[in-house]
């Protein structure tokens, strides 16, 4: 078989980049580009999956071909589905402890600051996704004793097939949308979490994802089940080095929160500026359950992401906190979707976005109140900050109310950084960059304070990086 390097000699020259970095690429060489029946069968075969999963994958492939590309939101016409590797197996086996990880992978994570977090026991277990399979995975023993399952999704299919089959694809059906169908057909990796009845997981479960092979699609699949009266906070973050051609990231996250349970899902997405990030995230809430999405979008070329909560039982509650930064060449089309399907349900969406350098941020949200969902309440707040003349900000808040006894509120403001604010800070001896970053930090503070501490620090660093050279 011809290797990618032979086909594309110029790739050899891509070693180090000024702003991005990439490890030597050995896993990607054997992966095929393009999507076909054979590729899907091959993925399933390599993983020795049961037949029902293969059938589901093939069904996903068929629906992917049939579903139309979305015509709203961002321009997706540049995605070349034939030029993407759909499965890349890491050449390394799963490692049992940090020391066992290969040197270059360790270096990758050092730059992301994982070992420190591990040392300080800030995270309960790290499922670090390196290429398509999880190579490092650890759960604290006390969690295991409580019956909490926290493994990568491939392992979950092998070891907990019954539980897996019961929930997989129930929140987001195979044919939900084009990219969910694609994910179903080629998914690999992701996290699987089960929290048994009444168990309260005190520390956030954390996983890092990285794309590390050029043109490799990352199609992780995450499934979280929070049983009655249980609680878990899952934290996902991702960064990627810069590559030459466009990458596609299309994940599916399904969450089931049972009666009285509570789940919080925190993401800070910082893909490099050539990644199409098209993600389907959805949770269902039974009676009295709470789902909270904390969603940060900083990187990527295009992000289309609308975490959804289906409020299926009385007094269920959904909440989304969303921040987006769009710099040069970026379009962050983010928002949230709340579906009220039962009485006395409540939802709230708080969105903050910052656009600079010709970037574009869009808030796109839907609040739907179905017939019978009386006494529902919903509140939507969107604030946008523009720091220069060439950036763009849009707000598209859709509301669909089919019930009369409902209280619905929506408010949006768009503002620019005022000269008064800058003048005041600069008269106190601050550089303009610094002052700008401080104003932006203040603007996103209501959401930043909801983040785990190390994430809030990372976010602040990222804001400073984003604001460098934003003025002048």
């Amino acid at each position, binding site marked *: 078989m011809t290797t990618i390097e032979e086909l594309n000699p110029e790739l050899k020259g891509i070693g180090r980049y000024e702003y991005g970095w990439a490890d030597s690429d050995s896993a990607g060489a054997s992966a095929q580009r393009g999507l076909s029946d054979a590729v899907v069968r091959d993925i399933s075969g390599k993983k020795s999956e049961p037949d029902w999963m293969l059938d589901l994958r093939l069904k996903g492939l068929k629906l992917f071909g049939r579903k139309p590309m979305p015509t709203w939101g961002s321009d997706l016409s540049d995605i070349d589905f034939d030029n993407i590797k759909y499965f890349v197996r890491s050449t390394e086996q799963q490692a049992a402890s940090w020391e066992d990880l290969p040197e270059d992978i360790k270096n990758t994570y050092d730059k992301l600051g994982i070992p420190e977090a591990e040392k300080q026991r800030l995270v309960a277990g790290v499922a670090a996704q390196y290429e398509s399979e999880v190579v490092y995975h650890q759960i604290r023993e006390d969690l295991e004793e409580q019956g909490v399952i926290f493994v990568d999704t491939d392992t979950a299919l092998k070891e907990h097939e019954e539980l897996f089959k019961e929930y997989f694809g129930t929140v987001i059906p195979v044919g939900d949308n084009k990219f969910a169908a694609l994910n179903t057909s080629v998914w690999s990796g992701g996290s699987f979490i089960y929290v048994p009845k009444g168990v309260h997981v005190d520390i956030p479960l954390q996983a890092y994802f990285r794309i590390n092979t050029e043109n490799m699609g990352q199609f992780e699949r995450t499934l979280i089940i929070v049983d009655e009266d249980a609680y878990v906070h899952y934290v996902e973050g991702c960064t990627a080095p810069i590559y030459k051609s466009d990458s596609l990231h299309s994940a599916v996250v399904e969450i089931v929160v049972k009666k009285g349970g509570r789940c919080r899902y925190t993401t800070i997405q910082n893909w490099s500026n050539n990644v199409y990030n098209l993600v389907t995230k959805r949770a269902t809430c039974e009676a009295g359950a709470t789902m909270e999405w904390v969603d940060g979008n900083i990187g990527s070329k295009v992000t289309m992401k609308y975490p959804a909560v289906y409020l299926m039982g009385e007094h269920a509650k959904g909440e989304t906190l969303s921040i987006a930064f769009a710099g040069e060449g970026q379009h962050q089309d983010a928002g949230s979707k709340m579906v009220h399907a039962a009485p006395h349900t409540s939802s709230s969406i708080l969105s903050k976005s910052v656009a600079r350098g010709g970037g574009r941020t869009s808030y796109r949200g839907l609040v739907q109140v179905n017939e019978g969902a009386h006494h529902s309440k919903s509140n939507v707040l969107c604030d946008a900050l523009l720091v220069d003349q060439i*950036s763009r900000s849009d*707000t598209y808040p859709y509301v669909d109310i089919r019930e*009369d006894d409902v209280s619905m509120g929506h408010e949006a403001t768009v503002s620019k950084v005022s000269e008064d604010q800058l003048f005041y800070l600069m008269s106190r001896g601050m550089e303009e960059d610094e002052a700008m970053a401080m104003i932006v930090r203040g603007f996103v503070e209501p959401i930043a304070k909801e983040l785990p501490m190390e994430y809030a620090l990372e976010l602040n660093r990222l804001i400073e990086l984003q604001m460098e050279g934003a003025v002048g």
Partner: protein
Amino acid sequence: MTDTPVGDAVETVESGTIRSHLNPPPSYDLADHPVPVGTEEVWRFTPLKRLRGLLDGEPSEARLTQENSVPAGIEVSHITAEQAREIGEVPPSERPAALAVSLAGGATLVDVPAEAEIDEPMVVDLSGDSVDTRVWGHTVYRIGNHAKVTVVVRHTGSATYCSTTSFLVGDGADVTILSLQDWADDAVHLGRDAIRVGRDAKVKHTSISFGGDLVRMHANVEYDGPGGEAELLGLYFADAGQHLEHRLFADHTAPRTKSRVTYKGALQGQGAHTVWIGNVLIRKVAEGIDTYEENRNLVLTEGCQADSVPNLEIETGDIEGAGHASATARFDDEQLFYLRSRGVSEKEAQRLVVHGFFNDLIRRVGIPSIEDRLLETVEAELARNVLKES
């Protein structure tokens, strides 16, 4: 074509066009406005079946009965559709307006000379007596520089009516417009008021809808120079089975312009449906914009549906301020409780709450002779339903 946001921005500046899926580009060519099927973003709230074929379009000589009260100094004449175009009316951006322009058989031109200050309002009374014939209306108001005028257009009776009206407001002019839809229960009305605001001019436009089976009104504003101000007010009261739709579009085409939108509505009875769409577009050239939109809906009984969608599209970072707010709710139980604890009966308390809800808006209409009658109409609407039930 470029596909990056930066490319878009450059392209926008160069060509003066913008991609906005909410607001199709204007055109006189009917082929550019295909017959809607109902799934289009701009049509998805409207029950097309109840339009009685108003979108298919055939020429009609039928007219509404018209009684004008024209104050001295204003001239009314009839012109051809071509002349209306030459005058520089606002071109149609949707099928109903395009149909009205091409099928009405000419337009009415109302001329208000420059510098004229006319205190007495011009009142146009339009009424119909049948829903069987389709009627097309095409009007152009040309208001000279620094003129001051008030225009009231009142719709009553039964009709299947499609109208487009341009208000070309000269530099520094001060114009107050009121469009009142007080139709009989079987009327269908698709209307568009398109306003072009001159440099430093001030326009106040109020749209009030009480009657009709289906009423879908557009109020569009664009600016011909810097410093223009537009205040768009609206009030609607939907009863059982009524569909009342109001679509606003403030297109900030010039720097330092201002728009303020306040629409308030009440709904009562099975199948009452109101739609409010507020679109604001701030173009690249339009720096220093100040805009705020607000929609409030009060749901008085069960079985009503209120849709409210404020959209903001902003192409430049140099703005004074932009925002919108929308809320839909039932009676405030605390307000009712407070009033009842003061010995006010429940139905009187409800009446007072609705009265207070609309009162400040009505006081802003700016036409004293109309304001009191509007309050009376609101009271009469309330008497029809809420008071009867409780």
